[in-house]
């Protein structure tokens, strides 16, 4: 991987990350817009969870990750701390793979 590619990704990412803080930082938004914008993170995070659990390139697959994330979901419902959720998911995925 070239440094040029790394720097391009870094610069582009910084611009995207800067949209909120640099253009609108410290300003209060109209309530309607604020409520709409606050619905975005749940949609985007849920999409990431789904894609990283079931995606393999352009295919949808069911593998050890799904077992791990399902176990992690139970931990989330039980209000387990972040690190416990991650470790439970890893253990379940690793255990499933060891057994199958």
């Amino acid at each position: 991987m070239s440094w040029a590619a790394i720097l391009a990704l870094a610069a582009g990412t910084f611009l995207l990350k800067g949209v909120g803080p640099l253009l609108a930082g410290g300003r209060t938004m109209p309530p309607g817009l604020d409520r709409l914008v606050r619905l975005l993170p749940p949609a985007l995070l849920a999409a990431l969870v789904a894609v990283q659990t079931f995606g393999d390139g352009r295919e949808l697959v069911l593998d050890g990750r799904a077992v791990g994330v399902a176990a992690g979901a139970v931990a989330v419902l039980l209000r387990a701390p972040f690190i416990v959720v991650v470790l439970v998911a890893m253990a379940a995925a690793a255990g499933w793979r060891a057994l199958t």
Partner: protein
Amino acid sequence: MRKALVIGVAVGIYGVSFGVLAVAAGVSVWQAVGLSALVFAGGSQFAAVGVIAAGGAPLTAVAGGLLLNSRMAAFGLALAPVLGGSVPTRMLAAHLLIDESSAMALAEDDPRAARRAFWLTGVSVFVCWNAATLFGALAGSLIGDPEAIGLDAAFPAGFLALLGPLLTDRAARASALAGALIALALLPFTPAGVPILAASAGVLGGLLARRAA
């Protein structure tokens, strides 16, 4: 404070897996650390290294990573009211704006608590993510297959743990469900990153749920 540190440590777990995978893909140790320090957006780093590993062009790796990171613009707008201050402060805030710092801040109702959660989580994850990347890149061969110890499940499970506290009402839950379904429906047909970007339309599900309530 403790929460932010614990998240840093947990994110370190997948920072190690990033270092391992990057070096396995033929990225040098310093480039792996460079990605973690300069890009500092885990999902796009995994995606870019994945493209390189599959023999893809650097331009594809950059484009895919940026599509994936377009969600940062949305997170930044959602957090804009609590990310004020001088221009250098806001630039630093921009660099530390990641899923973890955003989700922790958005889960707080009080603006002061939200600001505190953002900075503590951002700094904690930055330090741990970079240290872990270096460790993974150097110790890659000792760790062996990241999948055998379930490291590939750690990443989505971590996002799920961030998502959980945001699902406080019907609208948020509907938005999340719609976002996930949109992303899965598009995944077989679109380049990497597009499903996540398109999942923004999941907010429509949230708006419908709010109207129905």
